[in-house]
C-alpha cells in the first residue's frame, strides 16, 4: 500500500512528516532541511522553482516569485486589495471571483501555486522512502492541516491543491488540533488544552477538551491576518523608513531588507541584541547597519502580541471557561520562539506552555500522527473538530438565516424548506453564506445555486427541502428534494471563490503539460540547498557576540580569515548555473570550518559545565 503522509501547508514554510515504526518525524530534503519555504518562482525559460531556491529568487527576480500564497487561498480580489503593495507579484481576478496570481508568463490560481509546494513535498517524501530502500515509496494520499479559522472556500481550495498535486486528501485537520496530537495530549484521561499558534501568517487560538481519547474542539478563534509576517513588516517598515525605500517601486531592496530583519529577529530569540545588516543596496557604498536590542524589539512587537489576546479571551468565552481552567498550553509556530511570546502565554493561562517539540514541526508531526491513525484504523483516539463559522442562506431582504451554528461539532447537517413565489415556478435561486453577521453582504459568500426541476405547481405549494452537509473536513455539500413529489432536484453550485470540478480537471491536464522533469535543474537546486545550509550555520557562528573571544582563545592565527574567505567564495558561487562549482566551494568551506565546529562544540559543553544555561551558548542551527 502506498504511503500516507502528514503535511503542514504553511504560509511561510511547509513540511511533510511520516510515522515510521510508531515514531513520527519530519522528512528532510537531501541536504537535511525539513522546512520548505512556501515560495514558488518561475524563470524566463518556464522552469519552476520551489522552496529555498525560489526564496533566493525573491532577491534576484522578485516579480516572478510568489510567497505567502496561503493568504490567497479561497479568497477574492477584494479581500486582498490592501495587501497588494506589500507583494512584488501581480494579483488579479474579477470582483467576486477567484484570485489569479501572475507567475512568469502564466496567471495561476492559488490552488495551482500551492500544488507546486505539495508536489515538492510529495517528491521529497518519495525520495526519502527510496533512500530508505522502501519497496513502495509512492505517496498517494495525505492529511493536510489548515488554520482552524479557514472557511469552506479556503478548505476546498486546499483540497483542490492536493488533487492538483496528485494527492488524495484523506482528511483536513485544524493546525492546533494537530499540535495536540504531536504532544500526545490525547493520552490525558481528561483535560482542557489551549493551543496558541502564532505562525508566519496566521494566529489561531483553540480550546480543546480531551476526554477518554476523544478530542473535541470547544472553540476556535484567531486572526487570519496576524503572525510573524506582521513582525517582519514592522521591522521592514522601520528599516525602510531609515532608508527612505518605497515598497511599490523598490521590490528587490525591500526583499533584501526583509531577509536581514528576519535574521535579526531569529538572533534576538537567543541573544540580547542583534545587528541588522543589509548589503548591496543601490546607491549606497556601505551596507546599512543597525543595532537592535531585545528591549527595543519587544517594544516594537508588543502591539502584535496584544492583538492575540482578544481572540484568546473570546475563545475562552465561547468555550465557557476561565483561563484558570486550562490544564495545558501548547505553543505552535516559529514566532513562539520569541521569549516575550512565551512570557505572555504563561501569564495568560497561568502555566508554562509546552515547548519541547520544535514549534515549526509540531503541526506536521500531528498531521502524520493523524495519517497513521487513519491508515491503521485504530480507534483509541478520535478527533472531533468544529466548524469555525456559522453557515446560512440569504433570505428576503438580504438577512441571513443561520442553518449550522459556529463551533458545531462536524460532521454536521442542517436543512431548510423553500417554496415558490409565482405559479408554475420551476427554479429557485439560493445564496449560501458563511459568517456571523446579520446581513448577507457582511458575510463570506460561499456560492450560489439554482434549484431546478421543481414540478409546476401553484405558488407556495412546493415544499423543497435543501440539506446542507458539512463533512469531517469542514467542507460543505448541498442536496435537495421536493417533499410532495419526492423528486430530487439538480443543483448547480457556482462556488464564489473556488474552482469547479471541470476547472480542476483542466488544470490537472495543464500541469502535466508543464511538468518538465529537469534532472539537472533539480540537482543544481539540491547543491544550492546544501550550500545554503552550511553558509547559514557558519554565518550564525560568526555573528555570535562572543565569537571574537572564542576565536582569540581557540583558533589558530589567520584561521578566521580563511573561513571568511571560503564563505565569501561560496556565497559568490551561489548564482552559478554549474552545480560542480557550488559543490567544490561547499566542500572547501566545510573543510575550513571543521576545526571551528569542534571548538564550538567544546565551548558549549564547557559553558554548560560552568553552569550557564544551554540557551545562552547553544550554537545549534535553527
Amino acid at each position, binding site marked *: 500500500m502506498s504511503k500516507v503522509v502528514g503535511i503542514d501547508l504553511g504560509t511561510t514554510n511547509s513540511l511533510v512528516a511520516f510515522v515510521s515504526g510508531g515514531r513520527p518525524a519530519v522528512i528532510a530534503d537531501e541536504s537535511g532541511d525539513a522546512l520548505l519555504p512556501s515560495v514558488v518562482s518561475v524563470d524566463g525559460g518556464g522552469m519552476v522553482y520551489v522552496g529555498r531556491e525560489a526564496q533566493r529568487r525573491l532577491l534576484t527576480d522578485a516579480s516572478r516569485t510568489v510567497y505567502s500564497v496561503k493568504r490567497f487561498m479561497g479568497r477574492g480580489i477584494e479581500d486582498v486589495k490592501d495587501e497588494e503593495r506589500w507583494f512584488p507579484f501581480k494579483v488579479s481576478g474579477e470582483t467576486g471571483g477567484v484570485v489569479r496570481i501572475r507567475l512568469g508568463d502564466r496567471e495561476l490560481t492559488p490552488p495551482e501555486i500551492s500544488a507546486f509546494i505539495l508536489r515538492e513535498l510529495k517528491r521529497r517524501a518519495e525520495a526519502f522512502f527510496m533512500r530508505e530502500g522502501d519497496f513502495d515509496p509512492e505517496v498517494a494520499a495525505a492529511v493536510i492541516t489548515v488554520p482552524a479559522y479557514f472557511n*469552506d*472556500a479556503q478548505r*476546498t481550495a486546499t483540497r483542490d491543491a492536493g488533487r492538483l498535486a496528485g494527492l488524495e486528501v*484523506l*482528511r483536513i485537520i485544524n493546525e492546533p488540533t494537530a499540535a495536540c496530537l504531536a504532544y500526545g495530549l490525547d493520552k490525558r484521561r481528561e483535560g482542557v488544552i489551549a493551543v496558541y499558534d502564532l505562525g508566519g501568517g496566521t494566529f489561531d487560538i483553540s480550546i480543546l477538551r480531551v*476526554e*477518554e481519547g*476523544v478530542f473535541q474542539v470547544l472553540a476556535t478563534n484567531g486572526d487570519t491576518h496576524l503572525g510573524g509576517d506582521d513582525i517582519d513588516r514592522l521591522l521592514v517598515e522601520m528599516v525602510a523608513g531609515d532608508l527612505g525605500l518605497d515598497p511599490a517601486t523598490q521590490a528587490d531592496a525591500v526583499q533584501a531588507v526583509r531577509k536581514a530583519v528576519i535574521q535579526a529577529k531569529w538572533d534576538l530569540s537567543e541573544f540580547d541584541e542583534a545587528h541588522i545588516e543589509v548589503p548591496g543596496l543601490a546607491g549606497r557604498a556601505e551596507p546599512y547597519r543597525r543595532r537592535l536590542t531585545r528591549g527595543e524589539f519587544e517594544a516594537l512587537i508588543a502591539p502584535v502580541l496584544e492583538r492575540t489576546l482578544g481572540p484568546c479571551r473570546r475563545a475562552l468565552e465561547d468555550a465557557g471557561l476561565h483561563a484558570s481552567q486550562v490544564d495545558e498550553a501548547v505553543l505552535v509556530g516559529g514566532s513562539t520562539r520569541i521569549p516575550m511570546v512565551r512570557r505572555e502565554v504563561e501569564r495568560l493561562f497561568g502555566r508554562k506552555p509546552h515547548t519541547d517539540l520544535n514549534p515549526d514541526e509540531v503541526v506536521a508531526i500531528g498531521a502524520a500522527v493523524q495519517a497513521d*491513525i*487513519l491508515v491503521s*484504523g485504530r*480507534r483509541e483516539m*478520535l*478527533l*472531533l473538530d468544529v466548524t469555525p463559522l456559522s453557515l446560512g442562506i440569504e433570505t428576503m431582504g438580504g438577512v441571513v438565516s443561520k442553518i449550522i451554528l459556529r463551533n*458545531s*461539532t*462536524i*460532521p*454536521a*447537517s*442542517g436543512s431548510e424548506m423553500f417554496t415558490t413565489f409565482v405559479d408554475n415556478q420551476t427554479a429557485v435561486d439560493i445564496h*449560501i453564506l458563511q459568517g456571523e453577521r446579520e446581513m448577507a453582504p457582511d458575510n463570506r459568500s*460561499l*456560492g450560489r*445555486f439554482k434549484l431546478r426541476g421543481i414540478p409546476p405547481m401553484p405558488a407556495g405549494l412546493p415544499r423543497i427541502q435543501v*440539506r446542507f*452537509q*458539512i*463533512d*469531517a473536513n469542514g*467542507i*460543505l*455539500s*448541498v*442536496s435537495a*428534494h421536493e417533499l410532495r413529489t*419526492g423528486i*430530487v432536484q*439538480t*443543483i*448547480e*453550485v457556482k*462556488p464564489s471563490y*473556488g474552482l469547479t*470540478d471541470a476547472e480542476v480537471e483542466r488544470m490537472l491536464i495543464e500541469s502535466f503539460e508543464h511538468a518538465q522533469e529537469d534532472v539537472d535543474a533539480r540537482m543544481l537546486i539540491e547543491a544550492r540547498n546544501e550550500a545554503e545550509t552550511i553558509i547559514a550555520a557558519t554565518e550564525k557562528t560568526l555573528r555570535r557576540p562572543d565569537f571574537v573571544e572564542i576565536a582569540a582563545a581557540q583558533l589558530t592565527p589567520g584561521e578566521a580569515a580563511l573561513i571568511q574567505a571560503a564563505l565569501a567564495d561560496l556565497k559568490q558561487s551561489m548564482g552559478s548555473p554549474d552545480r560542480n562549482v557550488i559543490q567544490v566551494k561547499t566542500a572547501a568551506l566545510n573543510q575550513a570550518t571543521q576545526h571551528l565546529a569542534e571548538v564550538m562544540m567544546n565551548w558549549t559543553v564547557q559553558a554548560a559545565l560552568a553552569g550557564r544555561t544551554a540557551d545562552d551558548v547553544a550554537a545549534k542551527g535553527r
Partner: protein
Amino acid sequence: MRPDTSAIPIDPCKHCGAGAPVDVHFCPRCDRILTLGRHGDYFTFFGLRRRLRLDVKDLEQRFRALSRLFHPDYFHNATSTERLASLERASYLNDAFRTLRDPMARLEYLLKLEGFTPKESHDATTKVPQGLLEEVFELNEELEAIQDMRAEGASASEVALRLHAARQPIEANLERHEEQLDALMAAHDAHLEANEADARHEALVKLRTLLLERTYLTNLLATVRREAEAGEATAS
C-alpha cells in the same frame, strides 16, 4: 463545495438486504453500518427514553462511544455507501448531542416530537403571552419614559440606574420560570416512568406555556440590554 446527490432513504441494509429495527446502527446480519434512512428520534438514537432531565455525563459517554463507531475517519477505505452512511450517522449524532445536551433545546425538541408545533415558539417573539401582558405593558411604559429622559438630556448614570431597576422584575420572573420549568420537567419524567399518559400530556402543555413565556422574557431582557448599550454608545 460540490453538489451532493445522495439518494433518498431506503429501508433495508444496502449491503445484504436484511431488515433491521429502527435505530440499530449496524446491520444485524452483515455488521455493515446502516444508512440513516429510518431513524426514530434523537432520544432513541442514543438509546434513551424521552426524559427531560438527563444525566449529562451519561449522555456525553454515549456520545463518545457512538462517535467511535460512526466517525468518517474509520470508513475512508469502505464502500461509498458505507462512507455516506457513516457521514450521515455521525452528523445526526452530532446534531442530536448538541440538542439533547442543552436542557432548553432538549425541551423544545421534545415538544416538537410530541406534536406541539414549533410555529408557536416563533410567535413568542412577536405575540405577548397572556400571562405576561401586565408585565410587558409596564416595561414598555418604563422604556418609553427612559427614552424621553435620555432625549431630555438626562445623565448616562441616571439612565443606567433606571434601566437597571427596570430589569429587576423581569429577572426575578425569569428565575421563577426556571424553577417552575425544573419542577415540571421532573414531574414529566415521573409521569413517563409511571406510564401516566394524560398527566404527562398535561405537564407538556404547561411546559410549553412556560417555555414560550421564558423565551419572551429572555428577549425582553435582551431589549433592555440593547437599550443600555445604545445609551453607553451615545454617551461615550
